[in-house]
């Protein structure tokens, strides 16, 4: 048998201890998912991953009973199974992003991945052996009896909702939750994560109460869950810089397109004295600060709109990168943000929404969003027509005097 020796973390002293609360607390202060993965006690230990025999496996060879695939493989498989299950059994809720209520807690029973509580964050197969088979039973996180441990074990168990030890420890855990929650993509997982188990209450009532309480407690976390994180810090930063430059260009667009002038030519000029602006004076936001809002040549005030548009575009593109990560959705978001900023400002300044902006943006958006979600290709043109049609209908109502007198 040339499988590698598989070490049992609970029995082998050279293996790291099962994760304890202290470790979790330090993890909480790390910087996110990568740091957590790096500090994962099972990381890089090939002992847990099988080395496949080099030759073809004989037909009758059984896998050893303690055969375990590696952590990441198992997680990936679980996710894949869940996805295929969801896809085959029901209409995908992808588009409106609202999972059916029974799927809100999918994956929670397995104790794998979705709940950031310290125990269930580590998959059950890895943390449990005969003496601590601790995982949620199928059908819900309910237990009728408190298993007592001491020290680290108790702390560890408390993490998944046994007894509240102290207010302070609890606060630490919830902070940990908020920190660790960012990377998880399960929609509505925070409902799962806040389920607590109180012994001695009948299951149904307990579940209902837990869900209610989870909703209430989840309300605190709404602000951290508002934007699901997609992109890295570097991507966000680069997108912000890119957005500043784009915003500088948008200023030109806002100034010239409603007047019917060319965007590209001629170069930037002071509208009053006509002096062309040097590249040094054209740096987004910074130049405005350096020049103190005045033209270098004639001293005419530069409207505060210019740095504001640049900063807003930069911030919005950074936000988009943060939210969507490197994906087609990011492309859609970038084009939309650019179009919306320029349209908002032209409407504010000239009361115009130039076709030269709306038309190309619409075409671009249609193509990009169909590329981003090909299976929903019909939704975009349909809702474009519906939005425009509904709008013009309401507009004619308003004109006919049926509206609110706008």
């Amino acid at each position, binding site marked *: 048998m040339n499988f590698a020796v598989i070490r049992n973390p609970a029995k082998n002293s050279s293996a790291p201890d099962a994760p304890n609360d202290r470790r979790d607390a330090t993890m909480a202060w790390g910087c996110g998912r990568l740091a957590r993965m790096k500090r994962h006690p099972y990381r890089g230990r090939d002992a847990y991953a099988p080395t496949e025999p080099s030759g073809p496996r004989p037909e009758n060879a059984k896998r050893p009973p303690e055969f375990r695939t590696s952590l990441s493989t198992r997680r990936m498989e679980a996710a894949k199974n869940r996805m295929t299950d969801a896809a085959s059994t029901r209409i995908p809720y992808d*588009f*409106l*992003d*609202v999972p059916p209520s029974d799927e809100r807690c999918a994956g929670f029973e397995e104790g794998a991945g979705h709940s950031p509580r310290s125990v269930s964050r580590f998959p059950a197969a890895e943390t449990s052996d005969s003496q601590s088979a601790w995982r949620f039973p199928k059908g819900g996180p309910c237990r009728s009896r408190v298993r007592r441990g001491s020290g680290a074990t108790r702390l560890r168990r408390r993490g998944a909702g046994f007894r509240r030890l102290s207010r302070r420890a609890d606060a630490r855990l919830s902070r940990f939750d908020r920190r660790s929650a960012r990377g998880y993509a399960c*929609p*509505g997982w925070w409902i799962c994560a806040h389920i607590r188990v109180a012994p001695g209450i009948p299951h149904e009532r307990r579940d209902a109460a837990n869900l209610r309480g989870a*909703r209430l407690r989840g309300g605190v976390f709404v602000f951290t*869950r*508002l*934007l699901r994180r997609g992109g890295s810090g570097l991507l966000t930063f680069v997108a912000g810089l890119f957005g500043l430059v784009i915003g500088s260009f948008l200023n030109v667009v806002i100034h010239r397109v409603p007047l019917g002038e060319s965007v590209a030519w001629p170069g930037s000029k002071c509208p009053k004295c006509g002096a062309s602006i040097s590249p040094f004076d054209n740096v987004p936001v910074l130049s405005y600060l350096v020049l103190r809002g005045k033209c270098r040549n004639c001293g005419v005030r530069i409207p505060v709109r210019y740095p504001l548009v640049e900063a807003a575009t930069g911030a*919005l593109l950074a*936000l*988009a990168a943060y*939210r969507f990560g490197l994906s087609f959705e990011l492309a*859609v*978001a970038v*084009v*939309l*943000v650019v*179009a*919306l*900023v320029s*349209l*908002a*400002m*032209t*409407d*504010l300044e000239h*009361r*115009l*929404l*130039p*076709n030269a902006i*709306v*038309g190309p*943006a*619409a*075409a671009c*958006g*249609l193509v*990009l*969003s169909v590329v981003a979600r090909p299976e*929903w290709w019909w*939704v*975009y*043109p349909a*809702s*474009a*027509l*519906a*939005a*425009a049609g*509904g*709008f*013009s209908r309401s*507009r004619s109502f*308003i004109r006919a005097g049926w509206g609110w007198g*706008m």
Partner: protein
Amino acid sequence: MGMGDVKMAGMLGCFLGPYAFLAVFLGALAGATVSGVLMAAGRIGRRTHIPFGTFMSLGGLAALFIGPWMWSGYLGLF
């Protein structure tokens, strides 16, 4: 509100899909609120043009970033 707003709503539909309705609704809400406040403060008159495109683009940004969240939260009320 002119023809430009209609086209802009169509453009939002191209980008956002069904969330465009949310965007238009939020824009109308924001526009009505702001113009109501300004009207009450006497800064603008009854016939002043409201730049609805500006408000609609604010609504579009909200729908882009937190649209799904708002929608699921709205459904969660029931």
